């Protein structure tokens, strides 16, 4: 029945293999990344080598099922031994993983080097070769990947709970031990599916890298699963095509580099968690802070003059901000763009618009409220509070302001004796100029 799905051309087979391995590893990779067991994945993938060698030696016709079962068995024994080492000795997880990884791998190499005739194709399993995958391998991969998909579909919720919080899962009455066992069982299977295409040495890359890229793109687990599968498939196809184009290069490293390239791109451009997005956010914040500080300076000049004049000259503003006139003009231009100030006709002075007044008063209020809060409630010395308030004034939301006002009993003066402006009142028609 499955044979209908298997294409006859070599390229078709390679693509199908890429899809299967991307799907299998993409699914399990998400759990690996979220459970922080990336290195367990690496240990299991190295530990399957003696199984592969045994499969190659003892299978009369190189039956993929036989090789698959031997490899999976070796992986599971390895995973079990890691647990046993950690449970019965003082060795920590890193050492236990390293021991199993290295010992099993060496055992595989020794065994292989003794039976070189029977294990001619072992290089395909070590560094991957999509070209060596034939119909019977594909049949095996299809069955395993479908099994994995079905298991993830049914066990997604409990597995997620166990990954997130084992204690809580136990409280819910989940069989945590069995679920963990099932997880490592599935992990081993996904490693073995990818074996022939990617190879023992680099399987962990196709497990971790696509899932990590997906993790940077979304906060929803279902989406992460789909994205991770997509990336895995894409890396598989790209790697397969490129390595077929350049002869002699094993597939595994190329698929790995393709996955790394995907991760690299996502690392920079991911909309929320990407590095560029973070940089943009920081620089946007910095611009807002500079703009708001200029706004506040206009208010403070006005306040110092008792709100007697409507206009503030750019030169005065520059003196107040301790910046060059040019720099201040730039800030003012940005204020103008946001409709917070208007320039006089000759362009040497400016005044706040009504929204400008509102925001400026809010800022000054935030600053003074926070200073008051720190001195009165948090027992800071008066000379310690200004710097902190400079930062906080830009981020206090209306809810926090309301809480502050309540806790401070609607104060009128800040710790230095300056009045705390009340934008709500001012906007109801009370002109700020008329307040003392």
């Amino acid at each position, binding site marked *: 029945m499955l044979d209908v799905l298997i294409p006859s051309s070599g390229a078709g087979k390679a693509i199908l293999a890429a899809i299967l391995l991307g799907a299998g590893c993409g699914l399990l990779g998400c759990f*690996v*990344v979220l459970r*922080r*067991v*990336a*290195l367990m*994945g*690496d240990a299991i993938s*190295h530990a399957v080598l003696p199984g592969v060698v045994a499969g190659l030696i003892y299978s009369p016709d190189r039956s993929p099922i036989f090789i698959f079962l031997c490899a999976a068995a070796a992986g599971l024994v390895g995973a079990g031994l890691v647990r046993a*080492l950690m449970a*019965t*000795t*003082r*060795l*920590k997880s*890193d*050492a236990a*993983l*390293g*021991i199993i*990884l*290295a*010992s099993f*791998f*060496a*055992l595989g*190499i*020794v*065994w292989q*080097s*003794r039976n070189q005739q029977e294990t001619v194709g072992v*290089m395909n399993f*070590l*560094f991957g070769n999509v070209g060596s995958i034939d119909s019977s391998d594909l049949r095996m991969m299809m069955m395993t990947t479908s099994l994995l998909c079905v298991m993830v579909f049914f066990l997604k919720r409990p597995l997620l709970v166990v990954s997130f919080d084992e204690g809580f899962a136990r409280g819910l009455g989940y069989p945590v031990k069995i679920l963990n066992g099932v997880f490592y069982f599935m992990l081993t299977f996904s490693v073995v599916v990818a074996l022939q295409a990617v190879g023992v*040495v*680099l399987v*962990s*890359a196709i497990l*971790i*890298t696509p*899932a*990590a890229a997906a*993790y*940077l793109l979304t906060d929803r687990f279902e989406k992460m699963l789909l994205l991770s599968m997509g990336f895995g498939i894409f890396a598989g196809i790209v790697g397969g095509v490129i390595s077929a184009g*350049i002869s*002699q*290069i*094993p597939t*595994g*490293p*190329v698929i*790995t*580099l393709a996955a*790394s390239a995907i*991760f690299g791109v996502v*690392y920079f451009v991911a909309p929320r*968690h*990407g*590095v560029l997005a*973070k940089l943009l956010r920081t620089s946007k914040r910095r611009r807002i802070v500079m703009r708001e500080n200029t706004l506040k300076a206009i208010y403070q000049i006005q306040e110092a003059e008792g709100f007697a004049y409507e206009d503030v000259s750019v030169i005065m503003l520059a003196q107040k901000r301790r910046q060059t006139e040019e720099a201040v003009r730039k800030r003012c231009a940005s204020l103008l763009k946001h409709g917070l100030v208007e320039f006089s006709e000759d362009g040497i002075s400016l005044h706040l618009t009504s929204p400008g007044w509102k925001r400026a008063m809010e800022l000054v209020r935030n600053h003074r409220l926070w200073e008051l809060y720190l001195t009165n409630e948090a027992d800071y010395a008066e000379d310690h509070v200004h710097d902190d308030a400079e930062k906080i004034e830009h981020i206090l939301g209306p809810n926090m302001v309301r809480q502050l006002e309540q806790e401070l009993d609607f104060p009128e003066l800040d710790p230095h004796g300056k009045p705390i402006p009340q934008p709500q009142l001012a906007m109801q028609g009370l002109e700020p100029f008329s307040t003392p």
Partner: protein
Amino acid sequence: MMDYLTLPWDVLGIGAFWLILMAFLVALPCSQVGSFLILRRMALTGDAISHSVFPGVVVAFYFTGDLASPWLIVGAGLAGLISTVLIELIHKRTRVKQDAAIGISFTSLFALGVVLLETMLGKNVDLDLECVLHGRLGLLLEDETLPLLGQMVPQPIIVMTGVSLVTIVLMALFYRVLLLSSFDTGLAASYGYRPALIHYGMMFAVSFIVVAAFQAVGAILVIALLILPGAAAYLCSHRLKTMLALAALHCLLSAVGGLYIHVWFDTNMAASVVVCGAVLLLLAWLLGPVDGLLWKWFKDEPEHPDNETGDKIVTHSACSH
């Protein structure tokens, strides 16, 4: 029976001695640094380093064409540095956790190394994928020899003797610093030992030794030499000095045992040494005097830390000064 024991000597003559010596000399520095890696819970950092220095080795080899060239260490050091930077960039700047960051960067660099190897070097007898996997320990006897003390000594042995000596001298010099900073970073920092400096010093030492061992055992088996001796010794001892000495003994026994496996079963020499090391570790796990499963099983009862240090002891001493 006796035939089996003398077989390597019958087949290889003095070559058997050279092979054992070489395996021991490669494993010894690895075991000493590796013991500290285990105590610092950095065993997998050793894994990551040994994979990620590989592209540096390939590039340096491409230009020098000599596996013993010091430029290989420079290349490896640079590649190791790049991997450290990559790990930091990934896990400090994004929400990807450290284990995944390590996995991503070392697999990427290793893959890059393999691709470079295949494209730049093509069919090269000294450095190919076989060598990456198996090492060239078995080919030692075909190497150039140099006269030393009236003997023709294979050249790699002289190099590895140097590496071992440097490692041991450095370890002896910095023994206390390593001990304290591994046991209690806080106190070490309060003494003015710089934790970051020690950390990077360790990483550099590991890179250096990995490159030195690379030719003999390849990029993957070297992890075994870093971890197995220290781990086996850790299971047998409660004293750091004893542990280091036992790790060295483990190296010697694996070297001898590895040679026998190699000769008896006609297997790859480097991997045989590791397998013998793994068997020794298994023995330590089962029979070791400290963590041995067998003793625990016989003792039947869990160890009780005794709780009866009387308060009297201290109260009297409090007034003794």
